[in-house]
């Protein structure tokens, strides 16, 4: 379960950062991304996929959350 630092870039897209892996990647899609539900599967632009436990509100970015890695994208 890597710890992921999430922030929004100037274009409003979600940026993923995992310090241990030097992974800095923009998220292509977020499964639930509304004001009352956030999380689920997140697809990164390098093809890898992560899963965040859905939560009832948008987290306050930037924030560090735990994620489960679903697919390395290779």
């Amino acid at each position, binding site marked *: 379960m890597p710890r992921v*630092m999430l922030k929004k870039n100037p274009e409003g897209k979600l940026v993923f950062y995992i*310090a241990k892996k030097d992974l*800095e990647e923009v998220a292509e899609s977020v499964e639930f991304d509304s004001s009352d539900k956030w999380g689920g599967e997140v697809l990164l632009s390098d093809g890898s996929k992560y899963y965040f436990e859905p939560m009832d509100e948008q987290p306050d970015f*930037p924030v560090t959350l735990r994620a489960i890695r679903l697919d390395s994208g290779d």
Partner: protein
Amino acid sequence: MAALTREETEALIQEVLEVYPEQARKDRAKHLAVNDQSLEKSNKCITSNRKSQPGVMTIRGCAYAGSFGVVWSPVKDMIHISHGPVGCGQYARGGRRSYYIGITGVNAFVGMDFTSDFQEKDIVFGGDKKLAKIMNEIEELFPLNKGITVQSECPIGLIGDDIEAVAKKANKEIGKPVVPVRCEGFRGVSQSLGHHLANDSIRDWVLDPAENKHNDFVGTPYDVAILGDYNIGGDAWSSRILLEEMGLRVIAQWSGDGTLPEMELTPKVKLNLLHCYRSVNYITRHMEEKYGIPWIEYNFFGPTKIAESLRAIAALFDDKIKEGAERVIARYKAEYEAVIAKYRPRLEGKTVMLFVGGLRPRHTIGAYEDLGMKVIGTGYEFAHNDDYDRTIKEMGNATLLYDDVTGYEFEEFVKKLQPDLIGSGVKEKYIFQKMGFPFRQMHSWDYSGPYHGYDGFAIFARDMDMTLNNPCWKQIKAPWKTEESTNTEVAASA
């Protein structure tokens, strides 16, 4: 020499790899690459931040060097104890040329070497008592210090001393921050982990405890901090004046000519400016998350990049700062154009190969290009993927990238590519000079500098010209080995 094609560069890498045994060849192959600007991500072409192969000559340093030497030692009003045997600190002392203002030994301590000087009995019985005693001595002898850091050398981790406990106790006794850093040299693969550990220690032992301090600080909407500038030869000063001229207020310098109160104030800034991304990105990301401070990377090498960076920084502020940036660029225009007019004709088309730490291999490219020079090979001692991501676009297509280059590889690449100038560290300097290549030491600017900012660019251009066009390079070959003399000899013997 004409630029190589992609195939030729690939062939060169294969040729150089040939001498290695199979296992080492496989490993090193991953660290050598031909640049491809079309790639978005560097992990597709190059591997970095891995343990060096035993048996090869690496140019890297250790975690202690990253924490003490790079991040902490320029903080001038604190005393940094090299905790362990005397050698690590003594041999690293004063080589970095991190300039500072202050009276050494009274209120500034950068040029000095403090060590616990471990002896056999300290290893056998532990050094915690000695460390506690040292702190009291420091307080007595140097009462104007603002705090102490304990930089662990290898033996501390091996014998399991509890420096955190000593630090906490000393902190209570002397009432100043005492920062233990677990940066034993054997940790991690290079100095890079030392940066990270130093960043974490700043977070836990400086920023967190200081949250309720400095409540009388009056902020402005234009407060910024310079992060990751170590003031080599005065770099941070020649950067700072540009920022101040455009209307910003620099309230902290990390860590060149920096102080502890400046670090404690940093969470109050509006924007963090990062020069060396590698060594401070961890604490910057922490400040972003915890205090909501945005950050931006900038590059103050060469007028093209300076103007780009000033505009990018200004774009995050109001019109006053935006106008300020334009005013600064306009103000220095005549100056830098004169520098280019003078040196470009002497340097046009010359080629450069670089191998430096974690930022200059990409940041200086623009400055060379401003002088009409081409960087044909570059590499980092301790970069990670995210640094190479940022490098791909800066380098030309089909140029050479080498990560944690070995002594052998570097020499072979140089022999084949025949650059007009090499920029690397002091361990490489004399080898290449003896091989007849003009060389600049790009860690401490070869006793010169500053190179940042418009003022620095003038010095940069002069130094490159002075080195590259020095008449001594024509004298490297013995007179009887030059072509001319062979010809005349042949003619004479005929």
